[in-house]
């Protein structure tokens, strides 16, 4: 789909440019249609991945830039596995998602991060350094920190810094959280609006009635929470792994940003307490996913893991470091190791903060928002098409 009129300018070098975002022999495709037919998520109105390959081969950059299809693909790899030309159509959808992320981002940073690993490393290092320096300068370890152990032997984590009361400390961290959330959220929201503009407003072929926005709204929530589309893929284990990661990550994110005062507390709560259980679930989910993904990426098998973009490894490493420092922090705390707890806490934040600030608005994590919105937008478009009965619903042959 997509307005044909405005999207017909040809960029003959586009294929070459896209190779920076993912690797595939996309020019090898001879349009047998196998991939689109085997794709469990492709449906009338939103046919992919073959249509995207065709558009790419024709160099219609604008048309791809305004397409929703890449977000509807969950990269199960079925299409690439069975493609008779080894053209790797699934990886094209992945590359397009990376590319689109850079297009939605108005700051231009995303493009820098995706096309140059050096830029991304540098950005991570700068933010990490900022975190470490602010701690050491403004919130240093208090001289009598060794005493800050509660009756069960655990470190009283909020009482470690000099000159700041425990309550104040939590509040400070919370402010930091909120500041980060506002920056990240603000960027993400503007990016989503950009996406909305490119995929919906700029597409003059469909006019979406206001009512549809409300009618289809549940899709947004539903798809975000359940990743229902993914479960259509035949490989259910992929869906499960992805769901574990997604829920684990989101839970952690919400706890840390919204419920910090309840989470980061002085006493050590019993193991079956909700916050410890949630924390363990999240940690397990993330670790489980990480283990599988690292193994698969190193083996380059299944086909979806054959090509790893630099951003994939950075994401994995950052997530692994965050999780590991989190676990170590937890252990040090329980063991009553005061200094170790303090420094691990700083390192933990020095990994976590850049990961969120860079990944969420500019890189891989943004898909957490783009994907449900894309599904929402696609339903909006489908709804209008159905209403106008443009959609050739009944195949002539059945």
């Amino acid at each position, binding site marked *: 789909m997509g307005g044909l009129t405005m999207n017909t300018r040809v960029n003959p070098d586009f294929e070459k440019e896209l190779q920076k975002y993912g690797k595939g022999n996309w020019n090898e495709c001879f349009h047998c*249609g196998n991939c689109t*037919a085997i794709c469990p998520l492709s449906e009338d109105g939103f046919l992919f991945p073959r249509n995207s390959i065709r558009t790419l081969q024709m160099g219609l950059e604008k048309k791809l830039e305004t397409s929703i299809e890449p977000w509807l693909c969950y990269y199960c790899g079925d299409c690439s596995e069975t493609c*008779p030309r080894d053209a790797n159509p699934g990886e094209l959808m992945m590359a397009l998602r990376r590319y689109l992320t850079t297009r939605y981002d108005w700051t231009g940073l995303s493009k820098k991060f995706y096309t140059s690993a050096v830029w991304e490393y540098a950005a991570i290092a700068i933010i990490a350094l900022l975190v470490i320096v602010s701690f050491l300068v403004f919130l240093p370890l208090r001289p009598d920190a060794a005493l800050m152990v509660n009756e069960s032997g655990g470190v009283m984590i909020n009482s470690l810094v000099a000159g700041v009361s425990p309550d104040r400390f939590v509040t400070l961290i919370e402010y930091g959280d909120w500041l980060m959330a506002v920056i990240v959220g603000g960027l993400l929201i503007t990016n989503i609006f950009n996406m909305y503009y490119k995929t919906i407003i700029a597409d003059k072929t469909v006019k979406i009635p206001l009512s549809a926005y409300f009618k289809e709204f549940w899709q947004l929530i539903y798809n975000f929470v359940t990743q229902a589309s993914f479960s259509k893929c035949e490989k259910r284990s992929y869906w499960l792994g992805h769901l574990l990661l997604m829920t684990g990550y989101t839970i952690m994110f919400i706890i840390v940003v919204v419920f910090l005062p309840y989470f980061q507390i002085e006493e050590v709560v019993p193991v079956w307490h909700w916050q410890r259980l949630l924390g363990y679930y999240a940690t397990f989910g993330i670790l489980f996913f990480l283990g599988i993904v690292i193994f698969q990426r190193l083996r380059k098998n299944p086909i979806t893991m054959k090509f790893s973009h630099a951003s994939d490894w950075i994401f994995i490493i950052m997530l692994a470091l965050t999780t590991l420092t989190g676990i170590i922090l937890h252990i040090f705390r329980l063991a009553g190791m005061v200094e170790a707890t303090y420094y691990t806490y700083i390192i933990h934040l020095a990994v976590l903060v850049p990961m969120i600030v860079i990944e969420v608005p500019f890189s891989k994590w943004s898909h957490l928002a783009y994907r449900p919105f894309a599904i929402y937008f696609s339903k909006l478009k489908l709804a209008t098409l159905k209403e106008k009965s443009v959609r050739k619903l009944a*195949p002539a*042959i059945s």
Partner: protein
Amino acid sequence: MNSSSENGNEFHQKVHPDTLVIGAGIAGIQASLEIANAGYKVYLVEKSGTIGGHMAMFDKTFPTLDCAACILTPKMVEVGQHSRIDLLTCSEVTEVNGYPGAFKVKIHKKARFVDQQLCIGCGSCAAKCPGKAPSEFDSGTALRKAIYIPFPQAVPNKYLIDPESCLYMQTDGKKCGVCVKFCPVNDCIDLHAMDEELNIEVGNIVIATGFKIFDAKKVARFGYGKFPNVLTSLELERLINAGGPTEGKITFRTKDKKGNWVFKPDGGAPDSVAIIHCVGSRDENCNAYCSKVCCMYSLKLAHLVKEKLPATAVYEYFIDMRAFGKGYEEFYQRIKKEGVHMIRGKTAKIEEIKGSLKLRSEDILNNRIIEQLADMVILAVGLEPSDGVKQLSEMIGVEIDANGWYKELDSLLDPVGTARQGVTIAGVCQGPKDIPDTVAQASAAAARVLQSIESLKEVEFI
């Protein structure tokens, strides 16, 4: 291999006038007849129990829809009766020595267990035989006995025993032996007959070992071997053939009393048939090459289904329609006019739903997904080199390409010669091709052989 020094002045050697032809499909038959009719002796070595190859299995041939048997049977009979053709069935070449112009060839001739001279072809033996196996000639659509004749027009028109399915041979003579009792001719059946080794000398060798069809089970998502009514094209050829297991009716695969899946005349007819092109061809996951004949034979099969069952809907799912020869494009247009639905887009997968087959494909020209129900699906399987080409090529000292097809000397100027003098290739063994091209190449190979004998030209030793 430089035997010139030993032979001294005989470096220039007269070519032995006899010729060995390996494989007796239409290519081998054509080459043998051309050479034999020119006055020279031919040893025609065929692996199976009859000559004819794949062409003998078809009812009609594209694009003229000529009756295959009407063209082939007279040639087969001529081969069988020819005084200058020594036909060796159930035989394979096991050793090739010597040099061009004077090859020394060893042939392993398996026992047929039925005397070729004495058998009168009455079939009394087979009527009583308890041993059964899927019929090779019927492409497994029906069963044959352990003592059998591949098909009524087989050449030689004599019975033979397949040791694999014979109870007597499988039990070391403890069971059965019934055929011997019922055979009206004395000493005709010898259940203890032995294989033979033959040594011959020939001046030239023609390789015409043809092809085997792609094993459709390898593409698991089409469900061949799992869903009974997913068929290969060769199976459908046998159903359509009046001499086949269903007497020419297109019917469903059903279970017989013993639990074997077979086709019977009363199996019920499909209301819709879908044909999927390029199965096992043009695919990096199996064979990257185009098998060249399957587009055309699919059109032929679509026509024949329509002819037999006019009310049945026929669909063809293709990537590109390759109608490359004289009269072929016209044939394609004709079949379209007959009401066969042509869909550009290869089916991706087949599921079975309540006995019906659901195909999911992209209809590329109409920008939509088609989920279609069909009663029967035909897989247009590609062609692959027949078994044993590697050993044979090494034995003879000729090359095969990465796909296993014999390498011609020059694809433009010498498509029948090989890098080894005195060895020519004909038919599909050199690469996928249809019958007209096969016959043309076989005649060309024969001409090359005759030239080398007639001119009394010396060959160089290689």
